[in-house]
């Protein structure tokens, strides 16, 4: 019944699960934020995540070393980013469509490697939960916020870090200018191509980590297409967050909270068809945006290849 929702167990459950669920979104969406801030729309996030998820899982499984797995995911993601950068920056390929191409490639390749190298679903012992002494003992919220695995902490550290880089460093200045007015940046000697290479590769790397955060930290399995559209949601969250890491965090949390709320509603037998319950996070995300009219516009040069006049 509805009133069952308002118990501490449920609220704590929703908070905890929302924070966990938001982790992959955060990595991927913040990576995408960097790309979009510099004017590059990457729709291939999902593919990068899948390859990252597989690579980290496979390396962790065969070597037993989670950190090596994570590094591999970063490397693989960066490689995908590099390819995407070459195609969009040097070859001026339409960004949206090449992103879809990379998505398909990642989707197929991760599955192919999975079938050829593993053959069936297996599990690894993923990153353990780290209890922060003192903090994790705070009743209620302690366990939610301070007994997560390392990647959850990293995801949350990434938010202020990304904000800081974008807003307080010369690199951030260049990234923003390249996304708003690449001609202006170019005329001041900013290497537009180099900046975009950097952000796309960074985005790929973070997408790889997002995948790893699923396969070797949250779920500890690899299954074909395990991201199941999560990468596309991550892209959408960048728009929700209006290209600010803080906003992205808000979006990721909102989406994840509502998702875990609907899980709880089903568990508590609140009479609502399961399909309608599953719709909730999507509907609510849109409604929230409708209610809070944002004046922020997309980076002006988003998805436009940069080319000097000649």
């Amino acid at each position, binding site marked *: 019944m509805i009133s069952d929702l308002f118990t501490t167990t449920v609220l704590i459950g929703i908070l905890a699960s929302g924070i966990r669920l938001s982790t992959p979104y955060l990595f991927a969406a913040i990576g995408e934020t960097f790309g979009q801030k510099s004017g590059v729309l990457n729709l291939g996030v999902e593919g990068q995540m899948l390859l990252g998820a597989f690579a980290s899982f496979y390396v962790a499984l065969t070597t037993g070393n989670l950190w090596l797995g994570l590094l591999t995911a970063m490397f693989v993601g960066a490689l995908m980013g590099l390819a995407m950068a070459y195609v969009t920056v040097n070859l001026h390929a339409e960004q949206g469509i090449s992103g879809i191409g990379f998505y398909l490639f990642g989707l197929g390749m991760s599955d192919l490697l999975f079938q050829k190298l593993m053959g069936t679903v297996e599990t690894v012992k993923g990153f353990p939960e780290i209890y922060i002494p003192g903090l994790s003992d705070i009743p209620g919220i302690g366990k939610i916020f301070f007994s997560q695995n390392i990647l959850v902490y990293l995801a949350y550290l990434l938010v202020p870090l990304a904000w800081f880089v974008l807003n307080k460093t010369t690199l951030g200045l260049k990234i923003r200018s390249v996304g708003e007015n690449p001609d202006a940046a170019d005329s001041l000697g900013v290497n537009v191509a180099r900046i975009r290479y950097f952000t796309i590769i960074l985005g790929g790397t973070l997408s790889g980590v997002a995948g790893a955060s699923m396969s070797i930290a949250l779920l500890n399995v690899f*299954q074909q297409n395990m991201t199941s559209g999560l990468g596309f949601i991550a892209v959408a969250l960048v728009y929700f967050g209006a290209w600010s890491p803080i906003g992205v965090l808000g979006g990721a949390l909102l989406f994840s909270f509502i998702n875990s709320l609907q899980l709880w509603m089903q568990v508590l*037998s609140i009479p609502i068809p399961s399909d309608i319950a599953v719709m909730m996070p999507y509907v609510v995300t849109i409604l929230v945006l409708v209610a809070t009219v944002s004046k922020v516009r997309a980076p002006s040069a988003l998805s436009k290849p940069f080319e000097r006049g000649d």
Partner: protein
Amino acid sequence: GTAATQAPAAKFRVAVVMPSSTTDLAFGQSMYDALVKVQKEMGADKFEFVYSEGMFVVDDAAAAIRDYATQGFDLIIAHGSQYGSSLQEIAPDFPKTSFAWGTTVDTFGQPNIFAYEALSQEGGYVNGVLAATLSKSGVIGVVGPIETGDAKLYIDGFAAGVAATNPDVKVNVNYIGSFSDVALASEAATTHISAGADVLTGSAQMVVGAIGKAEEAKALWFGTQSNQASLAPSIVVASQVYHWEVMLKEMIALIQKGTLGGQSFTANLANGGQVIEFNSGYSLPADAQALADKTIKGIIDGSIKITLP
């Protein structure tokens, strides 16, 4: 020179079309494993099979089925309930080819279509009985994909088994709306655990992450479609496993005798098409084991009737 090779002792050739993959540790893999077993028994010189996996798209599957039919396969298995319409369309054009459609009982009255289904509710019931017995908290969690087909049968059977054993035990069901969202399935498992569940089960390929969550919480897990013990040896109590080879062999025998279809097969506990495989890694208390055996026997001899909602 094909005439010479197509001697009387020709190979029996099977093609299977399936939505997910042969390695999904669930529905797809169960058929693939069955075909491998049949091949082992009949010998590679007598039996060969090919497959088209990943045929999520219904009209791609239809194209594949028609193509296999054109190539003269002896039996073409449409291993997905969504392929029915396509079969109904294609089968009449190839009256000499045998088709099989699962999981359903409908042969469309066609003489060359076999139908097969699994009474997943039976295995579900047995799992449910055991779950109700083993649950200490009195709360059981179920993770499902969408509320239809094989998954729904299994879950409804499971709930019936629990209710029949201990009506006080609560069964919480969560359908996550997807066959692939591993993350949400695992979060659903965590939600069940937070809601007090100490026994979990779930159907379809996206539950692989949920099993891990059960293991972390030391909750028990019941599997279905394939034996999932390898994923968490310490907590998987039993898995309902499909053994399609039982009905496959019957079908092949019929086809070789000239009956190309018109019959429907059921994989159930009675005919061994469905088996409850207990995990040797988990030490099931003797009385629970006895109860399970009794339930299986009851279902087989008909003394236990499973009523679904």
